[in-house]
């Protein structure tokens, strides 16, 4: 475990030693950002909309007291979405999608000697291959989380009003009440931390793949498992430190 962590830290440091030119890294980052961002919009949209809808229905189901105003449903959907569901659930979904993609891609490059080909040319393979992925993830994850926030709250609105659990006016009153702007900052900081963890852990697992196709599959699975665990631990640490 410690040995793996040490190797991970060394891997991280190699990203910045003898890096490639900023122009190359910038171009590669944009390419990776498009790949990560565009390809993830659909799954993030589906997951966040339904999570918002389910949250709204379940909060409504639990609010049985007549003393609590119905607008509380909107308030709770907003708070749960911004503080936890949008950044964490989106990141866990992305750990599965983006993490396995990164690990599988790098693992395949490693076993087919494409990484060696880069090294022989005198190109720092970690800087060229991994750094743009990490930067792209850190750039794109917050955008996806913001999208998830909007869609989740909208999903709650649609589910609440269509089922008659809450009126449109009550829901809007709820989501506008007692808003703390810092919560958005907190969610965005979390999304950046999660993006960094998912992209680096998946890259680490993929980069050190050896063997054949079976090992590439195993590396992808390990990358997703490790990333999800890291996200959950980081989620707790962020809550303790930042709230």
């Amino acid at each position, binding site marked *: 475990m410690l040995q793996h962590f040490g190797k991970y830290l060394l891997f991280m440091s190699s990203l910045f030693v003898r890096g490639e030119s900023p122009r190359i890294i910038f171009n590669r980052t944009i390419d990776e950002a498009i790949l990560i961002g565009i390809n993830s919009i659909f799954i993030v949209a589906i997951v966040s909309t339904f999570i918002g809808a389910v949250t709204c229905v379940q909060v409504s189901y639990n609010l049985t007291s007549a003393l609590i105003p119905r607008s509380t449903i909107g308030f709770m959907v907003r708070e749960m979405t911004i503080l936890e569901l949008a950044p964490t659930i989106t990141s866990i979904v992305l750990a599965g999608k983006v993490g396995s993609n990164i690990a599988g891609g790098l693992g395949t490059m490693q076993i087919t000697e494409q990484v060696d080909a880069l090294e022989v040319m*005198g190109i720092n393979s970690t800087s060229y291959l991994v750094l743009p992925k990490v930067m792209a993830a850190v750039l794109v994850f917050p955008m996806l989380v913001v999208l998830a926030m909007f869609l989740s709250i909208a999903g709650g609105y649609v589910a609440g009003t269509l089922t008659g659990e809450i009126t449109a006016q009550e829901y809007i009153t709820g989501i506008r009440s007692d808003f703390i702007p810092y919560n958005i900052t907190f969610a965005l900081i979390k999304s950046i931390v999660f993006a960094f963890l998912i992209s680096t852990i998946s890259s680490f697992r993929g980069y050190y793949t050896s063997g054949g196709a079976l090992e590439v599959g195993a590396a992808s699975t390990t990358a997703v498992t490790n990333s999800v665990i890291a996200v959950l631990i980081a989620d707790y640490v962020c809550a303790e430190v930042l709230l």
Partner: protein
Amino acid sequence: MIEIHNIHKSFGGKKVLDGISGVFETGKINLLLGASGTGKSVLLKCIVGLIKPDLGSVTFDGTYFTNNKLDIRQEIRRKIGMLFQGSALFDSMTVEENVDFPLKMLTNMSRKERIERVNFCLKRVGLEGANRKMPSELSGGMKKRVGIARAIAPNCTYLFCDEPNSGLDPQTALKIDELIKEITEEYNITTIIVTHDMNSVIEIGDKIMFLFEGKKLWEGTKDEIMDTDIKELNDFIFANRLMRDAKRIEEEDREEEQEREAEEHARLEKNKPAG
């Protein structure tokens, strides 16, 4: 010229290379010959710096490489072209992008100059017009050719080939061998080829180093190899010859079978009732 001196390498206590020294001359095809698992590929990777030897040194035209400063190592690496066993083409890029890649990364050439160079290299390896193809659309032999084009694109001084014939039929293997030989002579580069194929030795080998269980057992020219009295080398040559004969017999059998089938087909066609 590349010189290696006393190269040692172990993996987990298992000695893979045991004090190998030698000189690889410029303008010549230098072969690292040996059966599978004798450490040929590990030695090649030690020379190009993909694996760090436990002990020993590598010198490229008098410049110390192994533990030298990173800048100097990078400078030397930029003069190296390498053809990998599985070609190692970047599968997300087209043929043109693959060949252009080292030019884009390592030179200050304009896009127009780069494209001209790419087209020249592709033409040189007999693949003009394949620019837009993806590696997945190429045959094994074509992939090797693109690999060679990529290796020579930035005017490499040293060419390394790790089993360039593996997975190829004898005719294509011969063509790849000839191509490497022509390029070596044309550009006067130092070429090192890892192989276990005696055909390559006979066709293109100028200087041969025979490895056995991580040790250099013999070194010489292709004319001298048949007169050696080293048992391991003779066994290797014998086994190779047997395998070649077996392949030849198999090929002849296949040809005979095809001829028989063709004759049978022709006979049936002839005897078919009219109308």
